[in-house]
């Protein structure tokens, strides 16, 4: 338990730092913008209580928002993403039969499951993020293009990060 808190805290700081200092300045014009920090919410342990998950997701979003000057925007996206995560995991994973505090990471869950998981969650996060950023229906087509392209970019970065810190564990 204590180890998981420390690991996640370090991950949180590192991901937020790279997001606001590095990835904030990277993007393909206004079309494809990476949001790697959501990897923190992706990698929270399976056993986390729903309330804590929502609080952490909200807090992560608010932290990024403070740096981005868009208070509430990333928070709303992360909140929705947390809900999608809960639904997705409850549908695809049996809760019992885990080691203590496993994470939904690439090394543990396998490539197919993980990429599916990452794409779905990233898509919902970006969908909410960009549609609330645009805040009007008239530019729906353009917003969807941005969502899809940004999802590709973010998932690509998530996979790179996961392979870089790849740890094979036996379930």
């Amino acid at each position, binding site marked *: 338990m204590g180890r998981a808190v420390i690991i996640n805290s370090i991950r949180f700081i590192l991901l937020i730092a790279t997001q606001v200092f590095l990835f904030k300045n990277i993007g393909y014009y206004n079309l494809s913008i990476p949001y790697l920090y959501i990897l923190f919410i992706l990698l929270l342990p399976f056993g986390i209580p729903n*309330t804590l998950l*929502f609080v952490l997701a*909200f807090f992560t979003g608010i932290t990024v928002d403070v740096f981005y000057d868009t208070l*509430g925007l990333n*928070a709303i996206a992360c*909140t*929705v993403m947390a*809900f999608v995560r809960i639904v997705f995991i409850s549908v695809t994973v049996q809760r019992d039969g885990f080691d203590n505090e496993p994470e939904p990471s690439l090394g543990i869950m396998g490539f197919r499951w993980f990429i599916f998981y990452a794409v779905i969650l990233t898509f919902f996060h970006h969908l909410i993020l960009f549609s609330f950023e645009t805040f*009007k229906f008239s530019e729906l087509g353009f917003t969807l293009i941005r969502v899809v392209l940004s999802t590709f970019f973010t998932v690509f970065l998530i996979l790179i990060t996961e392979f870089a810190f790849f740890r094979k564990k036996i379930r």
Partner: protein
Amino acid sequence: MRNLWLFISKYNAFFLLVIFFTISLILLINNNSYQRASVWNSSNQLVGTAYERVNEFSSYLVLGKTNDSLAAENARLRNLLKSSYYDDSVKQITVKDSVLKQQYTYTVARVINNSVHQKNNYLTINRGSKHGIKKGMGVIASSGVVGIVLNVSENFSTVRSLLHTETKISASVDGNIGSLVWGEGNYDSRFALLKDIQSHLTIKKGTRVITSEFSLFPPGTNIGYVTDSDTRDGNSALNIQVKLDIDFAKLQYVYVIINLLSEEQLNLEAQNKVE
């Protein structure tokens, strides 16, 4: 109560979503000027559209009243138009000359009614007996003969146009005097017919036709030019087609010719009949 708690704890993810979503949304709208403006704008737009629809419908109920008020407004504005005032000022051009005695003076008049497509065409001008117009006076425009004053009221006169079957004007072409008529066979407002020119004469096309000394117009006033001349029906006189200089359809301002000596002339000629 227990069931309610069970229900909430079973679907706690959804309720948490609602709670955090609401918090985030409130934060988003309160702290970002663009989103806040968008919310207010769209709600205003919604309300505005609803009002517009209702107003659109209710405006039909007062359509008659609106129509009346518009008509009254139109009438009021029409009264203010310059054209609804009668122009009473008269410009009379008189040249004072100590050597020559003035015979003709000209009075400017505006054509207020005109016709060119009838068999007998008349004009109405905005000058009448008040301005010294009398029956039988000649009327010209800047480029040629227009007609003869037919009837005179206090403020208006009617003019028997050149385009009238009974109008005959004494005209001369190359010094040969004939009479200019219109409406014998042709009803084209651009052409008139010059008759009574002896058929042994040859009149070239393009020769100018002017008023003669015998007409009530000042001698030498333009009428038009010859476009065709031939003998028809074995007559001894030529039929000369004359293209008129005036475009009667576009007549705006005319001059009424006041012949200062005509009374003297008429009195003298009247004595001949008495004897």
